């Protein structure tokens, strides 16, 4: 960074957003910094509308489902605890994150996943692992998990879930549809 500054460039660091509000804030700042405030505002209000709609619909959820989000599988299984954007997304749609007692991006013992018995499993690894869903369903001991028995294991686009930009509400909708298809439609 100092090298860039030394070269006479204006350097501006965007902090990692972990909530929707922070995403909007970041977008505003970037809009100001790049002189595209109008576009930023338009984009933000469109996203806010989407977000409100999704949030409202979550009131229809009768029983919150337990969800496990897998963001890495090799050599260890990684998931996201509190203070992460994915955790924020799960609470927005009224779902329970089974790693909610952990903080940040953490590895999770397969035994702990089996014993917390999630209703839905979401993987973001499909971009690297072609048969990510089948691998999870076939994992040792996973056959007893509700999500696997109901075939509620889904692969979602990791960019929309883990890159905090204009596409996060799109990612949120995909997540909502995977977890509560009865509320958000397939």
């Amino acid at each position, binding site marked *: 960074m100092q090298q860039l500054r030394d070269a006479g460039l204006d350097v501006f660091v965007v902090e990692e957003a972990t909530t929707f509000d922070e995403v909007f804030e970041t977008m505003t700042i970037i809009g100001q910094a790049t002189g595209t405030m109008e576009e930023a505002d338009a984009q933000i209000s469109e996203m806010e509308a989407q977000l409100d709609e999704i949030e409202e619909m979550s009131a229809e959820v009768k029983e919150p489902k337990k969800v496990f989000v897998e963001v890495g599988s*090799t050599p*260890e299984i990684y998931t996201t605890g509190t203070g992460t954007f994915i955790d924020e997304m799960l609470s927005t749609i009224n779902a329970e994150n089974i790693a909610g007692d*952990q903080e940040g991006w953490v590895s*999770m013992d397969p035994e702990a996943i089996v*014993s917390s*018995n999630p209703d839905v499993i979401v993987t973001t690894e499909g971009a690297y*692992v072609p048969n990510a869903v089948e691998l999870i369903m076939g994992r*040792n*001991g996973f*056959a007893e998990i509700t999500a696997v028995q109901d075939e509620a294991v889904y692969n979602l686009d990791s960019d929309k879930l883990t890159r905090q930009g204009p596409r996060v509400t799109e990612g949120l909708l995909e997540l909502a549809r995977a977890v509560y298809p009865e509320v958000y439609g397939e």
Partner: protein
Amino acid sequence: MNKNLIAYTISLILLAGAVVLGVTVGTVTISPRVLWNPSSDETAANILWNIRMPRVVLAGLVGAALAIAGAAFQGLLKNPLADPYTLGVSSGASVGAVTTLFFGITIPFLGIFTLPVISMAGALATMLAVMGFAKLVDRSMKMETVILTGIIFSSFLGSVISLMIALTGEELRQIIGWLLGSVSMRGWPYVQMALPFLLIGSFLLWLNRRELNAMLFGEERAQHLGVNIKRSKMMILVSGSVLTGAAVAVSGTIGFVGLVVPHMVRLLWGSDHRHVLPLSFINGAALLIVCDLVSRTIISPTELPIGVITAFIGAPVFAFIFFRQRKGVA
């Protein structure tokens, strides 16, 4: 005789204790009762039989294989520092395994046994190369020469693996996960994959227990004692490679087990190979089960690679043995 009975009893109790601890302790605590009464807690039984048990069995098999192979290498080379890891044989097996994963090789008729078989071939080739080179350098095959040769081959093979990893695209994660050395989430298929070779290899070594004893007096004396040196030597090298290859194929490189266990066994119960081999087998299994237990609980819920634990114990033991040898206290 009585002394041996005690040795076997203690070893078997240790192994049984390690197995029970291994299956009950973890992120989820499981009551040992689930072992004989699976219906008392079905989630626990599922975890026990599908996740923990295969892991414990695999750790036990790998530990047993590496320990008995180490015991045999030490006897054959009359070199207390020899073990599959220090001789570079593990690295040879790794190259075989990574090659199999890298090219996605499956040999017809072998099926799932392709991986262990190619690893064994890698192990044997490295073993022969290390021995050949060491002999060229120093006909008397001094301890340091053999170990140094092993290290040279290890580093070379290590860079071959790094090169292959750098060239892979998608399979990269699988290879790295395997390379770190772990018995986690391997499941029963891996147990099946390794078991036949471990049994055959251990049995072949056990057949040579008297020959190994005779070789302690030097090859010439052994020949006078009626040992077919060439045949025994070949059999021991091949079985040692089979054991190492199979162990590495299922768990990656886990160092120093073959060094620590036989040494402890000799220290406690003498150097008669008729007992060193089976006792190393049993205690090797117990040690690796415990190491695996430590590796997955010490910084739970994150896991430490098991090789870290074995090196933590193994490297000081290596230094100690070397020191003792050099000071001539042995």
